């Protein structure tokens, strides 16, 4: 059985085009509502997050589940009315406020302990990031993204011809934009935030999904030499077919542990794993259906112009 990717290329391009369009629209809507294309975590904008769990080992401490109202009241009393409060599993409290200094935070913790109940210090989590540090984290994250794109372009153009490298990068943009788009939508509908781990996941997606493209291009190059008589489309269709099992399987084996992290890994790693899952899946798609068909289209056009020139 052999299937031809190049024949239905308009179909593959439409799917990707739609996905990218939706992603961009989501980011634009997000930008117009919260002034950022993706909902930033305090890693990037600064702030304080307190996660506290009621000490349920103490008697009568967990008689009733926590409510956001009682916590909001305490926050308002301390002039922190614009903070967000989340209750996790009835007895765990997550509060996100502006950057609090040690005095303000201690005051808040004391008030919570007095008015709500005893919180267990062994399960506490405090994250405070000053606004300047946040901006720095964001800047260095973006710089890392740009630099690795650049590093990969240089490496690929050194190993392949320039047009291969260019289309590999187009495929990478595709993966990154779609991952970001999904998180823009999650940010809008479920308040999911992106933190520095999200930038890390984007970089990992770049590093990993270029693999798939490289393997296919490797085969394309080999086949151009082995079967010089076949048309460009046929050569590329063959290469995609020959590497298809490998492309699907390597993506699957990378996704399996990611699903494990997503299911068992706890809150910190959950969305990190999700970003990687989306990115890797998009990466497999773009390598098989986009990078290959774009290259075929470009090389055919090149050949046509060459033939015209010769005449």
């Amino acid at each position, binding site marked *: 059985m052999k299937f031809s990717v190049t024949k239905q290329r308009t179909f593959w391009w439409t799917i990707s085009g739609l996905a990218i369009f939706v992603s961009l629209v989501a980011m634009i809507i997000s930008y117009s509502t919260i002034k950022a294309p993706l909902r930033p975590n305090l890693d990037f904008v600064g702030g304080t997050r307190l996660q506290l769990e009621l000490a349920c080992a103490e008697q009568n401490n967990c008689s009733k589940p926590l409510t956001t109202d009682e916590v909001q009241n305490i926050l308002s009393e301390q002039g922190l009315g614009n903070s967000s409060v989340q209750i996790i599993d009835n007895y765990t409290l997550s509060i996100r406020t502006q950057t609090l200094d040690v005095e303000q935070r201690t005051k808040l913790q004391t008030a919570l302990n007095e008015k709500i109940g005893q919180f267990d210090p062994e399960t506490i989590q405090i994250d405070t990031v000053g606004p300047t540090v946040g901006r720095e984290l964001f800047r260095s994250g973006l710089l890392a993204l740009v630099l690795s794109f650049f590093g990969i372009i240089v490496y690929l153009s050194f190993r392949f011809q320039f047009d291969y490298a260019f289309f590999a990068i187009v495929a990478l943009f595709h993966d990154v934009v779609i991952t970001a788009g999904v998180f823009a939508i999650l940010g809008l509908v479920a308040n999911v935030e992106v933190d520095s781990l999200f930038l890390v996941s984007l970089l990992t997606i770049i590093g990993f999904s270029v*693999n798939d493209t490289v393997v296919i291009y490797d085969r394309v190059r080999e086949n151009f030499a082995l079967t010089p008589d076949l048309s460009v489309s046929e050569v590329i269709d063959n290469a995609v077919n020959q590497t298809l099992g490998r492309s699907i399987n390597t993506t699957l084996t990378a996704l399996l542990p990611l699903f494990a992290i997503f299911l068992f890994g706890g809150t910190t790693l959950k969305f990190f794993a999700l970003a990687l899952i989306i990115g890797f899946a998009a990466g497999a798609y773009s390598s098989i259906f986009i990078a290959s068909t774009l290259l075929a289209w470009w090389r055919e056009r090149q050949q046509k112009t060459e033939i015209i020139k010769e005449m």
Partner: protein
Amino acid sequence: MQRQQWLLALIIGLVIAAIVILIQLPLQLGLDLRGGAQLTIQVKPTAEVTTIRPEDLTAVKTVIENRVNALGVSEPLVQTVGGDKVLVQLPGVTDPEQAERVLGGTAQLEFRQQKQGTEGQFTAEYTIQRQMQLELEQLRKNQSDPNNQKRIAELQESLKKSNDAILNLFDPIGLTGKNLKNAVPSPTQGTNWDVALRFDADGGNKFAELTKNLAGTGRSLGIFLDNSLISAPVVGPEFAATGITGGSAVITGNFTAETANDLAVQLRGGSLPFPVEVAENRTVGATLGQDSIRRSIYAGVSGLALVLVFMAIYYRLPGLIADISLIIYALLCLACFALVGVTMTLPGIAGFILSIGMAVDANVLIFERTREEIKAGKSLYRSVESGFYRAFSSILDGNVTTLIACAVLFWLGSGLVKGFALTLGIGVLVSMFTAITCSRTFLLLTVLNLPGLRQKPELFSPTLKG
């Protein structure tokens, strides 16, 4: 054949070495896993001093180390980060309130004059304090011992009292770190070292006045950093008339090059005008950390299991061989983490788990190639060999791109991100070794030693019938 046996011996040797390393050198856990507080302290330039030089940052770090030591936390870690930050790790601290208060704020260096009639009291108190500090230093070398920890806590408490008592024996005279221009160690005769001080004009006058009052009395000049005494020199009688003038002075004593430098750095740190502030605080309770470890182990084990099962079902015999390589991979990888001293954090663990999935990639590439060669009618042995040979360039290209991303992350990233980049990067390197060496050796040995296999290519690919 000979070569394969050598490689097999090498692999077995490495596996044994890895197990020994893992038993001897347990992996270090980050604060997000074992619980504790991590504070990033930002050093801020002032209107007068707009740039922070590297030596300034080192001096600030010394000041912060002094403050951290006074907190009485076991195994604290203080290091400089970038050009203007100091990172403080306080394992086990879940209530960083006190630490945040103590660590913020400009360093306070003060020169004070000993009160009259306190000579006896001071000598006694100072001797006890020195003894306590020596004992504390000894105990700190072996902090994990619970008996030591208890004693350390007691000593910290008494030291604090002793510090306050000593501070009260000295009068402030308005000469502070602001007036100190520089402090450097300088060699005298033989192996002896001094610490040379230089004051600004105002400081020079105050220092002359101070030394005039103290000269020949036997009372000390107290130098305090953040209210604890770091040096208590006496002034010789020859300065009784005018004091030490000219704005320069030398502290002599039994200094070695090292102790002279320590004191000079403390003095410089105290003279810096930079305010410091806690810019980032990441605190995780110990129970929460243990919970994360448990979850990570579940995720890691189930991730590994899923990959192993998938490979065995899809690739049959080679899949099983890849599974063995993968387990060897996991062992070697963890041993490398222990050897390199990687601190395992949550993202670091994620990087490792992910690298398990990616490590299979090279095997998949090779096996797919091998299948193709079998289909093309080559013998099993030749197919395996050319499968490895022809897949190599793809493996290399793919891994180099991942390593580029890791290198950038490691170079630019902050603490947690670095951990991820390091574990993933080490993972990719180790995986190239295990895929190319382990899988290939095992596969060739099986094919060569069990001739019966050669009649059963269906073991290599379910769709092929012998």
